[in-house]
């Protein structure tokens, strides 16, 4: 399979993740969509790196994976804190900053 097939696969997964981020009302659901999008980016990085014959893209995807895991930990900590304070999960109800 050529590079094109991998790029299109990762574009499809990215857009599915974007769809989840736009349509989910639950904060945890939005985080799951973001995970899918970051995952698609990793496929892209590794495919380009493999077809270019260099490992730099793979090193970058190691960094991306670590940053994504930190993001998930912080994001879910914020979600737990929001539950504690506002007693709700829905992003629509989190409108404290709305004038």
């Amino acid at each position, binding site marked *: 399979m050529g*590079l094109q097939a991998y790029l299109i696969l990762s574009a499809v997964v990215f857009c599915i993740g974007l769809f989840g981020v736009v349509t*989910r009302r639950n904060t945890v659901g939005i985080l799951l969509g973001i995970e899918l999008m970051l995952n698609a980016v990793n496929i892209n990085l590794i495919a380009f790196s493999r077809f270019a014959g260099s490992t730099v893209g793979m090193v970058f995807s190691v960094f991306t994976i670590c940053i994504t895991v930190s993001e998930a930990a912080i994001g879910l900590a914020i979600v*737990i804190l929001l539950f504690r304070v506002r007693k709700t999960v829905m992003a629509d109800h989190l409108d404290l900053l709305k004038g």
Partner: protein
Amino acid sequence: MGEPIAFWTLAIILVGSALSVVLSKNLFHAVLWLAFALTGTAGIFLLLDAEFLAAVQLLLYAGGVITIVVFAIVVTERLVGERLSQTSRHVAAGVVVSGALLWFIVRAIGARPLTTTRPALTGDVTRLIGESVLTKFVLPFELLGVLMLAAMLGATYFARPED
């Protein structure tokens, strides 16, 4: 010969489970489908000769992130005292936005002549990654350590018991 079959199988698994993640009504099922999608991605990494990254993907994502999300769901369900049902809104807007983005990306990919042959591997990929992380990319690697420490402290601070 076996590569296209493996690619298409993994692509169907990945796209199908990704769709289930964003469309499933039950949040817990969505997380389990995400685990499936992340495992499929690890398979794609194996197809791209990145064995180390496939292992990292399974350990950190399918192991770590899924555990954290399940934990968060369990904790918050106990706090709220009701089931976290999933409803979606603005479905039409989501289809339009993501469909338009997909159309642009696929057009951009199709407009460029891209290589279809991979260069031969010059050595052990895992070894090459390890060497470049500790030589050329040692500063980003150290910064990553600082970031992870900050994330750990921040998560602990957020989740501290109220007193």
